[in-house]
C-alpha cells in the first residue's frame, strides 16, 4: 500500500485547500487523522483474513457517513449535528470525509496495492493503472478502464485478486495473513518513489506557509 505518510500529506493538502475559515491546527489534525484512518485495517488483518486495504478501503463507510451528514445538514429539520458543532464542525466533517475517501482510499486505488472497494458485499481488489495518451501513429491510447477484464472484479477495472488470493504485506502484518509473526523482518515505508517525496515536501511547505501567515495576521 501507499505509505501512510503520503496519505497524511495529501490529507494535509486537502485540509489547506478546503477548510477555508475553519482552518486551524485542530481542524488540520482531524482531517489528517481521517486521511490515515483507512490504513488501520492493516491492524484488523491480524485477526480478520485479508482485511488490509479491504475493511476500511470499501466505499460503504464513507458513503453512509456522507448520506448521514447530508441528511442532517441539508434535509432534516432538526439538524442535530449542525446545532451541536456549528458551521465549523460541519465543514471539518465534510473535509475529513473527503480526506478519508480521496487520500485514504484513493491513493491505494490508483496504481498501488489496490483497494477492495465493494468489500464485504463483493470481494475483489481493484487497481487503476495504465496510460492515457495521444499518439500521432496510434491515436488515443487508453488502458485505465478495462471492460471485460479478467479476474474476480465486477467493476471495469483491473483486479489483482480477492482477499483469499491476494495478500498485502504491511509493517504491522509482514505476511498479510492473520496471526502475529513476531520474529519477522518489518519494513515501514515512508516514501516509495520520487513523486511521493515531492508530495510530502509540498505538503510540509504548504502547512508551513499557511501557519506562518496566520501568525503574521494574528
Amino acid at each position, binding site marked *: 500500500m501507499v505509505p501512510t505518510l503520503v496519505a497524511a500529506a*495529501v490529507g494535509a*493538502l*486537502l485540509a*489547506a*485547500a*478546503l477548510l*477555508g*475559515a475553519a482552518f486551524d491546527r485542530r481542524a488540520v489534525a482531524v482531517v489528517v487523522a481521517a486521511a490515515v484512518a483507512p490504513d488501520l485495517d492493516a491492524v484488523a488483518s491480524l485477526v480478520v483474513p485479508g482485511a488490509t486495504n479491504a475493511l476500511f478501503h470499501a466505499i460503504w463507510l464513507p458513503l453512509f457517513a456522507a448520506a448521514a451528514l447530508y441528511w442532517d445538514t441539508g434535509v432534516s429539520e432538526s439538524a442535530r449535528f449542525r446545532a451541536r458543532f*456549528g*458551521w*465549523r464542525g460541519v*465543514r471539518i466533517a465534510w473535509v475529513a470525509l*473527503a480526506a478519508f475517501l*480521496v487520500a485514504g482510499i*484513493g*491513493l491505494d486505488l*490508483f*496504481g*498501488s496495492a489496490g483497494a477492495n472497494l465493494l468489500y464485504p458485499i463483493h470481494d475483489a481488489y481493484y*487497481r*487503476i*493503472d*495504465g*496510460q*492515457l*495518451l*495521444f*499518439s*500521432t*501513429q*496510434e491515436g488515443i491510447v487508453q488502458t*485505465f478502464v478495462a471492460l471485460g477484464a479478467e479476474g474476480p472484479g465486477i467493476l471495469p477495472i483491473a483486479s489483482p485478486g480477492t482477499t483469499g488470493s491476494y495478500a498485502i504485506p504491511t*509493517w504491522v502484518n509482514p505476511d498479510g495473513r492473520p496471526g502475529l509473526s513476531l520474529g519477522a*523482518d*518489518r*519494513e*515501514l*515505508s*515512508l*516514501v*516509495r*518513489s*520520487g*513523486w511521493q*517525496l*515531492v*508530495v510530502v*515536501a*509540498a505538503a510540509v*511547505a*504548504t502547512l508551513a*506557509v*499557511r501557519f506562518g*501567515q496566520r501568525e503574521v495576521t494574528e
Partner: protein
Amino acid sequence: MPSTVVHAGFALLLAAALLGDYYGRRALVALLVVLVLPEADSFLGPVMSGAHRTVGHNVVFPAVGALLLYYDTRVRDRSLVRDRLSDRWVAIAWVAVFAHVFAHVALDWTHLDGVNLFWPLQDQFLALDGEILLSTADGFVQTFVDVQIDPETGARSVDAGVTGSTETVHVNNPVEPRDPAIVTDEPVDRRFPIASSGWRLYLIGLGLFALVARRLQGPEPDAE
C-alpha cells in the same frame, strides 16, 4: 514528461491550499499560464542541444524571481511591483513561484532523466528516484542520495542521481519525439501523454476534486 495536465492537477490543489481569499478564476488562469510556459523550452530543442528540461526546468530562475520579488515588495522603500499591481496579484505571484517549483520542476525531477536542476550555474541533469523506509533489519534506509565512502582512500562520493548534461541527455517530447542523435527510418511518432500511470491520473483527479469541492462549498459565515 509527466504531462502538463498532471502538473496542472497538482498545481490546482496547491493553489486552492495557498491562495485563501485570492482564490478565483483569474488567479487560476494566471497560474496555468505559468505552468505551461516552461514547456516552451521544447521548442528550443532544435537550436540548443538538451534545451528541454533545462531552460524552463531549473530552480535557479524561480529562486532569482523569488529574490527579486521579495526585494522589491519587502525591502525597497518604494516597490515597482506594488505601484502597478494590487496585493492580490503579489500573492498570486508568490503562489505561482511555489506551484512552478513543486508541481512542475519537482515532478519532472522524478521522471526519466530528470531536470537540469541548477542550470545555468551547473550543467547537470539530476533524477530524483529512490525510497525511504525504516526496517527492523537495516534501520533507516534511504536510496535517493547514494553516499559511498571508498574503504581504501576514505574519499566520499555523493551521487544524487546524475544522468548527464545537455550534451548527452535528450528528454523526448512532442516537438522532438526522439533523440536527434539517433538516425532511423521509422516513422515519427509524436506522443502527447495525458497520464502514463495510475498516480498521474490520481494527481489530475485530485486537482479536479479540489476545484469541484471549492465550487460546491457553501458560503462561509463572516464571523464565528
